[in-house]
């Protein structure tokens, strides 16, 4: 799961325009260069250490997880990646056995001392253990902590000695032979198969490389994947060349019936050796305007997530603008499996708490904030209102579920505040805290909303301010850079903040982790702790996707709406545009390793 930085700051990377002659289509043609831009800078290339969307995209193209997804199948379908076949699941969904395909090699690196290094089962065992190494401080640990047999004991021991014993054979995670490895879970967990396709958790790194580079391993991505890093200027430019020793892998994807665009892509590319382009150039351009203009000027072959402010000129009403159509561009537009929200710090003396009075304040704020105009004005209609925390398309998502919080109703909001005593008692125009007796001292309050100082955040702040003014609540804004906000939030120092959240596995569970009590301070920024909710969460975790689990999710949604630890925001609609010579792009809801499915054809 990634916290997505909604808004980038002011760094403008240099742009490089290259004109390339058309080349005959061969596998990994080095003259085929695919250029595009990240909107936020990368942080590291160590799969265990990254949790942001952009670094995760890089590692997913450089390293290999055991499983992958069918690129065109919707809903998402898992397929073997480095495994010979899909894992065998036995003992009631607790024992997973994986067999790695022989003959897959890491790229050459000084750490291997000139020898070819084959990918073996032990690499996966080692890579997963690394998440539990206290020295790595993996932000992804919480996804596995508590689920693998024997791992928690090993973790406790490692925390005590500050050294993880990688050589110890663990019952829950070990290699059976050179190519076979096993994971034993404490209880059935139906998301574990997805974890095997999630690079941040299960991508294979080589132990020699980690030991050779030590703390600098994040700068030396040595993987078995289709691309390898060849040039890196931090926060500015990354160049990846096709891995010449990449295993024999041909394009094979099955679009759902009726998906004409997908079928056309599959027909064109089926049977081609991957990767098809020889080089990927990624620039970091945080400001929306230069990123968009670089694409329009053909300096980039693809624009990922067209900035919202240009939506009405690029695709008015969701249809590609005529001038772009004439240029042969292709629009791919889907609601993202993601969520924007604003949380209330549940431990805060003003906005937190579980008593009716505190609930009333949060619910009033929720009713008084106009998500509709946030969508139409601030987000340029490039979002749909969220009715539950679950992102669209994830299993467990119910598109007919309608929350009580979706309406904008300042009258109900004011009525609720009046009822619970949040009235203006000192006459300064702002509502004050409730008093038990009229004779009590009048205490004023204001709410501090944290946000990043970026241009695209401003209209969202303006909307909050306007709405809160209208119901008489004094809202102020704390401005800080996104990474600082993240740190402050994890330390519990923010009163309200609106981070984003993108799914990494196509399942509702990845959204509810943000509300599960024990995750407080990690994924659970609000520090929402409701025993009944936690009980339901664990109960749902033991069930496969289906009506029984959906019924539990419905209950969880209702509890969530009652206690209102967040103001639910939106699910953004993500629009990507490809140049006419970029072939084969489709946004997959969770898979980040898509570079190998792209081709360039300039003829």
């Amino acid at each position: 799961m990634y916290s997505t930085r909604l808004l980038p700051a002011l760094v403008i990377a240099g742009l490089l325009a290259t004109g390339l002659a058309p080349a005959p289509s061969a596998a990994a043609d080095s003259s085929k260069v695919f250029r595009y831009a990240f909107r936020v800078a990368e942080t590291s290339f160590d799969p265990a250490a990254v949790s942001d969307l952009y670094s995760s995209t890089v590692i997913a193209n450089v390293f290999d997880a055991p499983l992958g997804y069918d690129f065109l199948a919707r809903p998402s379908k898992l397929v073997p990646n480095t495994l010979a076949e899909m894992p065998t699941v036995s003992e009631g969904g607790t024992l997973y056995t994986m067999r790695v395909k022989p003959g897959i090699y890491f790229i050459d690196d000084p750490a291997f001392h000139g020898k070819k290094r084959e990918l073996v089962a032990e690499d996966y065992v080692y890579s997963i253990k690394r998440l539990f190494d206290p020295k790595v401080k993996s932000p992804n640990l919480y996804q596995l902590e508590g689920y693998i047999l024997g791992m928690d004991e090993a973790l406790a021991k490692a925390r005590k000695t500050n050294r993880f014993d990688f050589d110890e054979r663990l019952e829950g995670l070990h290699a059976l032979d050179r190519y076979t490895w096993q994971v034993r879970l404490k209880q059935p967990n139906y998301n574990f198969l997805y974890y095997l396709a999630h690079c941040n958790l299960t991508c294979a790194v080589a132990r020699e490389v980690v030991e050779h580079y030590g703390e600098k391993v994040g700068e030396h991505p040595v993987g078995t994947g289709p691309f390898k890093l060849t040039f890196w200027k931090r926060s500015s430019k990354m160049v990846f060349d096709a891995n010449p020793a990449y295993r024999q892998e041909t394009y094979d994807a099955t679009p759902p019936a009726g998906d004409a665009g997908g079928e056309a892509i599959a027909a064109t590319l089926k049977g081609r050796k991957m990767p098809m382009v020889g080089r990927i150039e990624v620039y970091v351009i945080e400001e929306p305007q230069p990123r968009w203009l670089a694409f329009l000027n053909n300096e980039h072959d693809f624009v990922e997530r067209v900035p919202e402010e240009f939506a009405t000129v690029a695709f008015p009403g969701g249809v590609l603008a005529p001038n772009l159509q004439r240029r042969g561009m292709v629009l791919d537009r889907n609601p993202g499996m993601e969520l924007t929200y604003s949380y209330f710090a549940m431990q805060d003396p003003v906005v937190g708490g579980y008593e009716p009075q505190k609930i009333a304040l949060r619910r009033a704020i929720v009713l008084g904030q106009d998500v509709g105009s946030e969508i139409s004005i601030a987000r340029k209609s490039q979002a749909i209102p969220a009715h539950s925390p679950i992102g669209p398309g994830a299993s467990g998502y119910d598109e007919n579920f309608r929350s009580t919080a979706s309406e904008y109703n300042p009258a109900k909001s004011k009525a609720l505040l009046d009822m619970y005593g949040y009235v203006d008692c000192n006459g300064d125009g702002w509502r004050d805290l409730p008093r038990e007796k009229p004779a009590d001292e009048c205490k004023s309050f204001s709410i501090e909303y944290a946000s990043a100082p970026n241009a695209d955040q401003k209209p969202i702040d303006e909307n909050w301010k306007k709405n809160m003014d209208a119901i008489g609540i004094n809202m102020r804004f704390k401005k800080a850079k996104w990474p600082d906000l993240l740190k402050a939030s994890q330390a519990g120092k923010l009163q309200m903040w609106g981070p984003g959240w993108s799914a990494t596995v196509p399942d509702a569970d990845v959204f509810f982790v943000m509300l599960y009590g024990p995750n407080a301070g990690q994924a659970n920024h609000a520090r929402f702790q409701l025993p009944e909710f936690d009980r339901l969460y664990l109960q749902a975790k033991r069930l496969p996707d289906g009506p029984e689990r959906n019924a539990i999710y419905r209950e969880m949604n209702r509890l969530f709406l009652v206690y209102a630890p967040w103001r639910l925001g939106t699910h953004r609609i993500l629009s990507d545009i490809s140049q006419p010579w970029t072939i084969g792009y489709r946004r997959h809801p969770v898979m980040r390793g898509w570079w190998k499915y792209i081709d360039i054809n300039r003829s």
Partner: protein
Amino acid sequence: MSAVLTENTPPRAPQESPGLWTLAWRRLLQDRVGMVALAVVILFIAMMLASFTGLIARDWSKESGVSYANPAFLAGQENLEAKAVAAGGAVSKAAPVDLSDVDPLAPRYKEWEERAAKIAVTETKRAETLAFGGDKWGRDVLLKVIKGSEVSIFVGLVAAVLATIIGTFLGAMAGYWGGKTNDFLEWFYNIFTSIPYILLILAFAAVFKKGLDTIIVILALTGWTGIYRLVRAEYIKHSAREYVKAAQAIGASHMSRMFIHILPNASHVILVQLSQHVVSFIKAEVILSFLGLGVPVDMVSWGTMLAEAQNELVIGKWWQLFAAGASMALLVTAFSLLTDSLRDALDPKLK
């Protein structure tokens, strides 16, 4: 009998020789460019005061038009943004989920309904066009420019006055006393100027809380250095002059020599510096707001307008950029010309 010749003519009043200020004012009056510039500056300041007292642009934040409403002179142009807003998103038809069995607020649902029904909500009709166009929320750009002038000019003026006071006081101290005081202040000055200006502003902006007063303090604290040097030089020059010695002879205190005798003779430098700093601080406020370090979210300044406008240009909404940019250009040019005329008028050598 001796005749006493009495002169009937009254004693001649001593010839009033015009003072420094009168002469300067006369010279300024003859400078046509200076007078026009002065008129423009006065007009802007009057506008700022009128806006500050609420005479004009009081409801600038009212969303009176559609999103990006066209300017009145472009009434026929298609407005894609407003169309997109009007189209809205698909609204789910399903009934909202029932929470009453788990909701601690459920016992008071009925009371809640009744109270809510009593609170009237009025919806205003939005205009298709506004005098000089609307911004994304449909606020009138013209009113925004007027309201924005309040922040920009106020910040520029107050910060410049503060910076001038700091610079003049320290400059006077260093120039008049010399010696250790001078050394210490020079050292202090060197530290300030060794840091790049913008970096210094950003450093202050990061430390202080966000707000209008903060911007003023930041600009004043970073902007005094140039004035300090010039005033110090004037004081070094003047403190050895005869008139200062004469003042000392009649027993004038140090303070009175510094600020009653020397100050008026250095005032031409100070005034010119003051108006130059107003110009540069208006620009600095714009830069700070542009970088998101400036005014808070519920206020408007020319800087925030320019920051908003940078992306609007790509979608063809040029009026906000034009309105803010033109007002700023006009005021800054007028102020610069006025400064120029002031310098000419106040320079005693040009008598």
